[in-house]
């Protein structure tokens, strides 16, 4: 599939869900969406458009919440598409995409322990890189602690 085709399909299927479409350059595209749409949108990318989930990055912001970027690419194409969601404090809850994309299981565990985001319906939300006896409520990558 060519990128133009993928772009067209995203527009026709997901237009109502896109809050902002930002093109950093030809190969780096950022799309802001609502956290409640994350499973549906990533499922569409992964299943229909055959995207590959690269990784997710969690960023603590001074705007009262945490940004999570889900990075995707499309095999054999130079484009990286990053879905950006803003999860508000103090609830910090978002649906897990690990049910759809197996490869997202570890990074959600990592974001949960390092930034304190709760991934709902995650199959196994235990510590990944921090020890089991790590104190509860201490998140190393948070800026407000």
């Amino acid at each position: 599939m060519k990128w133009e085709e993928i772009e067209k399909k995203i527009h026709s299927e997901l237009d109502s869900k896109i809050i902002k479409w930002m093109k950093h350059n030809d190969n780096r595209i950022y799309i802001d969406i609502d956290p409640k749409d994350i499973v549906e949108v990533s499922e569409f990318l992964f299943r229909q458009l055959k995207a590959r989930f690269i990784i997710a990055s969690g960023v603590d912001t001074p705007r009262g919440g945490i940004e999570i970027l889900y990075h995707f690419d499309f095999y054999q194409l130079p484009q990286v598409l990053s879905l950006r969601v803003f999860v508000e404090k103090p609830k910090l809850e978002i649906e897990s995409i690990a049910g759809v994309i197996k490869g997202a299981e570890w990074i959600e565990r990592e974001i949960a322990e390092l930034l304190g985001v709760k991934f709902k319906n995650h199959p196994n939300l235990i510590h990944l890189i921090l020890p089991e006896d790590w104190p509860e409520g201490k998140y190393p990558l948070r800026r407000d602690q």
Partner: protein
Amino acid sequence: MSEIIPIGPYHPLQEEPEFFRLHVEGERVVKLEIEIGYNHRGIEKLAESKSWDQVVFLVERICGICSTSHPAASINAMEDLGGIEAPERAQYIRTIICELERIHSHLLWLGLAGHFIGYNTVWMWAWKYREIVCDILEKITGNRQSYAMFKVGGVRRDILDEDIPWIRKSLDKLKPALDLFKGAVMDDPVIHARTKGVGVLTKQQAIDYCVVGPTARPSGVAIDVRKDDPYFAYEWVDWDIVVLEEGDVFAKVACRILEMYESVKIIEQCLDKMKPGVIDLKVKELPAGEGIGRAEAPRGEVYHYCRSDGSNFPVRYKVRAPSYVNIFSNEAACVGESIADAALVLAAVDPCYCCTERLVVVDRDKKKEHLLSGNELLRLSHEKTEQIRKRLGV
């Protein structure tokens, strides 16, 4: 009745500590649990307190084997952030360093894999010829490892014209060695018996686990950042991506051996095409914004994401190493294998070698534990190879 066999977390053979809990029924593995985090050094947090220049050095410390792939992804991310394009000569030099590193990393892995299945000759040979590559790297960069060559907008050292004939001669010495390995590994009936059909990762599993590099390509997933999202000089040279279909350990070995040929091809073309010119743009600052950088490390795609507020320090720096996704896929590849093969399968993704120093067999019913050493697991593996040798009469 199923037993649990823990493997890891520390072993002198491996690059980094990990812990595997094998659930076995008799000899067969029925489930695998993976625990990581023994080597968590907080690099991402540390990066927030380093200047952009220092971050490149910091990420070079992530891995001691593919030490240049993290800086490569790092400068790609920063150049993406700043919209910077490094000069042509610098791109060729970067490519040469990356490919030399791929060869030495693959040879190192091949040696360890040989040792594990009881082919110590392959081990000695592989590491002997790896010296040629390390010598070239030392000549160019001054270091055998952790070359500190890359910076935003260029490279720190030039390749001297008077060194080029010597580099070419060294590469010529390497080629017969690669033929040797190809012959020794690809035509050996025992290695075939030991690795063919073992630890198969199917194409669908490779897609589901989102694996990359020489773990994905042998499973029929044609993915290589050098081709898909060309950086440095990869677009300007002619080379092929190695894709195999079987997905077993043998395909993973074959993929790495064939890739070394491509690497030599790339280096030679870079040496041919390199023209005199500047090697550094002397970038002073980076703007506010975001940057994404990718690079194909010997183990697969390295992914870096950085965010800047325009100051001299990153606000957030995210690193994803290829083993992060590849190790997870062992969960699928190990199931159904015997204990003697499982360690080989774990090693086949080239994460860190088998982690077999401490091996505790836990008998669930008797609540009894006994400790086996790494040597004993090696013995298990060697015995299996011996049995196959006898059976085949070689």
